[in-house]
């Protein structure tokens, strides 16, 4: 089950990849960037995608594509960082444990060795894990195109099924994560599909607890529930200023599915997803709050 025939190009840099994307677009042939290949190759094998050109980013030498850097109030994660490297990164484990926690829940060990952070975000699978996390963290996504670099807020990034705010000639280079304030905790809760490992529903929460124990700030990202990841803004508003006990949190999270057009498919009915979104939201908020004050 090989994919359909294509021409293979190894980009030595992001600029070279952007140049190739522009050239093939001008020629009217389809080209795709290749990172870990763990979302692209499956759809190519099924002939759901038959690009004429694959542009492999893995050999690009730009420093911003790789690794995790902490400077001042920002943690930067390169697009080509693998799930496995994210899972084990010491800086993230200390300053932003949500992403290593999510990385550890992606697929299995072999998938984590190849798949990348940037590839996951760019692919925007409705059941992928990181979209929930980057929404909860309020990251900025950096894209480079022929006109230079721009940043896209996580809130504006996931647009529709497998669709992001990236332009076809842009490369996602890195993600900038704001370092969270003191008394902040974070948590990811996932109900995994037993066969594929993907999220039936996944909920990430980042909670800042005030000195009086009430909820000072909260962001909740939900994946798997709709055709793209989204924030649970109604539940967030209901939580802010209130106590963080189990019954208050559960009551607030009863609105966590509001605004999400729930998927109804062979993996789960819309009604089932609604219950899971609410339940996992409450669990994620409570666990995050517990860590914030631990």
């Amino acid at each position: 089950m090989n994919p359909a025939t294509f021409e293979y190009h190894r980009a030595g840099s992001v600029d070279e990849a952007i140049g190739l994307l522009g050239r093939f677009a001008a020629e009217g042939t389809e080209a795709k960037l290749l990172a870990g290949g763990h979302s692209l190759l499956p759809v190519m094998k099924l002939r759901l995608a038959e690009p004429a050109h694959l542009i492999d980013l893995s050999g690009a030498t730009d420093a911003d594509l790789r690794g995790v850097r902490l400077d001042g109030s920002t943690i930067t994660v390169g697009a080509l960082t693998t799930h496995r490297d994210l899972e084990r990164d010491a800086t993230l484990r200390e300053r932003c444990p949500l992403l290593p926690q999510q990385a550890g829940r992606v697929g299995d060990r072999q998938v984590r060795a190849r798949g990348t952070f940037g590839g996951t975000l760019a692919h925007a699978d409705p059941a992928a894990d990181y979209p929930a996390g980057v929404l909860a963290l309020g990251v900025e996504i950096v894209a480079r195109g022929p006109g230079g670099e721009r940043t896209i807020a996580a809130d504006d990034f996931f647009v529709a099924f497998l669709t992001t705010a990236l332009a076809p000639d842009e490369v996602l280079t890195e993600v900038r994560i704001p370092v969270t304030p003191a008394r902040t905790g974070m948590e990811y809760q996932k109900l995994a599909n037993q066969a594929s490992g993907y999220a039936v529903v996944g909920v990430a929460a980042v909670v800042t607890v005030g000195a009086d124990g009430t909820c000072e700030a909260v962001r909740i990202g939900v994946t798997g529930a709709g055709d793209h990841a989204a924030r649970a803004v109604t539940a967030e508003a209901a939580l802010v200023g209130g106590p963080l006990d189990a019954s208050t949190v559960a009551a607030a999270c009863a609105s966590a599915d509001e605004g999400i057009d729930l998927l109804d498919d062979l993996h789960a009915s819309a009604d089932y997803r609604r219950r899971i979104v609410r339940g996992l939201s409450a669990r994620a908020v409570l666990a995050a709050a517990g860590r914030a004050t631990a």
Partner: protein
Amino acid sequence: MATVPVTVTVNGTERTTEVEPRTLLVYFLRDQLGLTGTHIGCQTGQCGACTVQLDGEAVKSCMVLTVQAEGHAVTTIEGLAPAGTLHPVQAAFWEEHGLQCGYCTPGMVLTAEALLRDDPDPDDHTIRHAIEGNLCRCTGYQSVVQSVRVAATRMAEGAQPEPLLRRS
């Protein structure tokens, strides 16, 4: 069909050949190099029968293009220990009945060996988490986990690859 040259180090030997860019690593290993110890199950990245090590990390070779392995080192089950010997992980699978039909076994062994290099003394939960991507339809996993545990103990005691003949 247009082909491109690739150079991959397989089981310690550098191999240069021409492949179509769409050739999956698993087909290169099996069909071009005759290394049929790497099995094919699902071809969708789920079962782990095709697991090999790429620069020492367990990966699914049905999910990697041969061209993506350019300049890298691949280890298949044939290369885990010198010819005619069993690696301590293989020996432990033999002794603890970590296999029945053997279909999943090359992948299981290569994943387990990669785990033990990271974590020489894993608990059962860690072992089960590590082999999540290797499906076995026979053993029920119990004896696989036991085999990995025994391999860890033997390797901690300094076990080396041992001749296959001593066992038959």
